[in-house]
């Protein structure tokens, strides 16, 4: 790589937050999945994470003392606290879905996910695992750039003149920020488990108190910079935010590749995937066949089972490499999403499948996402024209493998 390529790359990752539509679709999709799951399990919430759980509060406490997972549900065993946390998890995922105070909601949503999932680790499946990881990564993305109430507010503000803008103090934002700070103070004062500065937190050496206060301070710093130092300090913060966003987006994309790659690599080693009978077996497991008639029908043909088994392995192993070619990548995305729809119905795993489809969506092309967005807008709001222009598609908004409106050289030189 020569110096100018390096410079161009650096300018790109410091100059804009890439993949605005992709990160928005991940935000909307995962908060939607988690919200639907929480609402679906509403009647069972006490058995899953609350006072009726066979994985009792004491059992959870003993395991957490050993593995140091973080859950605010360990702060009190009272059922009122549990109901509050469950309700907050629902509210924060709904608000993240709408993109209201996206940066704050992404943190509260993550806390809701960790609170419930870490309380009862043995109740989850792969879908919960995807939601857990993506909730952590989403905190670092600017996932409200489009398709959010925040974006709508920002567009309206941009339309006003400077004097009006100066008077806009953002009172709800300040109240929310202060309330989060007070809640954190209260949690620490009451000795909330897991809220240490340096002991085991999200990463070794960084406690949850450090992480959460750090995020809170960053939010405060942004407000200060925007109101009182709109020049260079704001530009520096913006650049750092672009960097964090772009790194988190990279991590999200790499995580999806890791999911498929390892799922594929382990399958290649299995004799049932080799002899092409693998998918016959899950179709005959009582826990994974809500529609046995349909499952047995599909598993009745040896050739169909062979093709589906081989196809699954081929697609999973190949996926990361297909990112080098836009067209092949899109075909594979469609195949994988279709397979997950099949899994949702046949194996009775709708929330897992939805989470995987949403994770896949980070690789959808921008042009496609914008068309879907426009269609949804027409469907929901009627044929009204867009309330504001879409985010300008500057040269900075291009990510390899995500969006290639103008055919770049790599496409031609690809083997």
């Amino acid at each position, binding site marked *: 790589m020569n110096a100018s390529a390096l410079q161009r790359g650096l300018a790109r990752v410091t100059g804009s937050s890439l993949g605005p539509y992709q990160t928005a679709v991940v935000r909307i999709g995962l908060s939607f999945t988690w919200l639907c799951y929480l609402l679906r399990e509403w009647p069972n919430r006490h058995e899953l994470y609350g006072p009726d759980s066979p994985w009792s509060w004491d059992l959870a406490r003993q395991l957490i003392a050993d593995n140091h997972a973080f859950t605010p549900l360990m702060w009190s065993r009272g059922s009122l606290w549990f109901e509050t946390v469950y309700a907050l998890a629902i509210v924060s995922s709904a608000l993240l879905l709408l993109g209201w105070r996206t940066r704050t909601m992404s943190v509260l949503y993550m806390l809701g996910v960790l609170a419930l999932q870490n309380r009862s680790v043995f109740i989850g499946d792969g879908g919960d695992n995807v939601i857990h990881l993506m909730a952590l990564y989403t905190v670092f993305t*600017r996932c409200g750039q489009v398709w959010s109430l925040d974006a709508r507010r920002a567009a309206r503000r941009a339309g006003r003149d400077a004097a009006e803008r100066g008077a806009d103090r953002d009172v709800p934002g300040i109240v929310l920020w202060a309330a989060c700070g007070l809640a954190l103070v209260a949690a620490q004062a009451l000795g909330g488990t897991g809220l240490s500065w340096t002991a085991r937190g999200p990463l070794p050496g960084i406690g949850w108190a450090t992480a959460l206060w750090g995020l809170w301070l960053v939010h405060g710093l942004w407000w200060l910079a925007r109101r009182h130092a709109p020049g260079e300090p704001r530009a520096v913060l913006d650049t750092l935010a672009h960097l964090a966003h772009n790194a988190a987006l990279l991590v999200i994309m790499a995580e999806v590749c890791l999911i498929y790659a390892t799922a594929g690599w382990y399958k290649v080693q299995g004799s049932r995937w080799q002899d092409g009978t693998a998918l016959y077996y899950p179709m005959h497991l009582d826990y994974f066949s809500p529609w046995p008639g349909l499952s047995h029908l599909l598993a009745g043909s040896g050739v169909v089972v062979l093709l589906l088994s081989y196809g699954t392995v081929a697609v999973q192993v190949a996926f990361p490499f297909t990112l080098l070619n836009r067209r092949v990548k899109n075909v594979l995305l469609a195949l994988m999403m279709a397979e997950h729809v099949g899994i949702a119905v046949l194996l009775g795993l709708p929330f897992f499948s939805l989470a995987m489809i949403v994770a896949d969506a980070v690789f959808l092309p921008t042009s496609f996402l914008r068309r879907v967005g426009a269609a949804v807008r027409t469907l929901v709001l009627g044929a009204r024209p867009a309330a504001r222009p879409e985010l300008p598609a500057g040269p900075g908004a291009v990510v390899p493998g995500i969006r290639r409106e103008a055919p770049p050289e790599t496409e031609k030189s690809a083997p």
Partner: protein
Amino acid sequence: METDDGHERPGGDAGLEGLSLLSRVVVAAGAAVVAVAAAVHLTMVFLHVAPANTVSKQHAAEIDDYVLPEFEQNWKFFAPNPLQQNIAVQARAELRGPGGRPVVTPWTDLSAQDGAAILHHPLPSHTRQNELRRAWDFYSGTHDAREQPSGLRGRLSEQYIRRLVVARLGAERDGRPVDRVQVRSVTVPVAPPPWSEEKADTRPVHRVLPWWPVATADLPEAKNR
């Protein structure tokens, strides 16, 4: 306070060249930290999900320390081979009978109850699809052939299964309290496909656990307070 909407960039379009030296140093340091953090994170997660290899075996402690508990993950869906057997967890209770004589109930197939709840349900609940199935996985993964628990997790899994069974069977029946419970698993291999020439023994295999006395800690919390 929603201060970062990623929209307005006052003075930002000038690029890095327009910034003062101090700002450029801050940005450069930030870029380095972010790049190193992302690289370390992806390396650690990769080594965690990849099969045990030369590097991951040498640095197992560091990798676990980094990845666990919040970044733990496992993507071996139906791999290397899919599960090829139906494992049913069944339980029975010993009730305190009239005059102190114990009465033993017939076996109840708890997994069959789960199966009935899942059948024809488009959105199966985690309480039916995962709870008992994963609790049994947890138990069998932390116990040896003589049902001896290995470490803390083994002991926790035992109490988990016991509490689960008591919750499902009920702490009492016809007004008589449950004194002890017994759990067994019945494993039935899925018969090979009709087109296959394989012969498989599909007779059920039983694993019977010892009787466990039911203590107060095994009763549902909401009721025992």
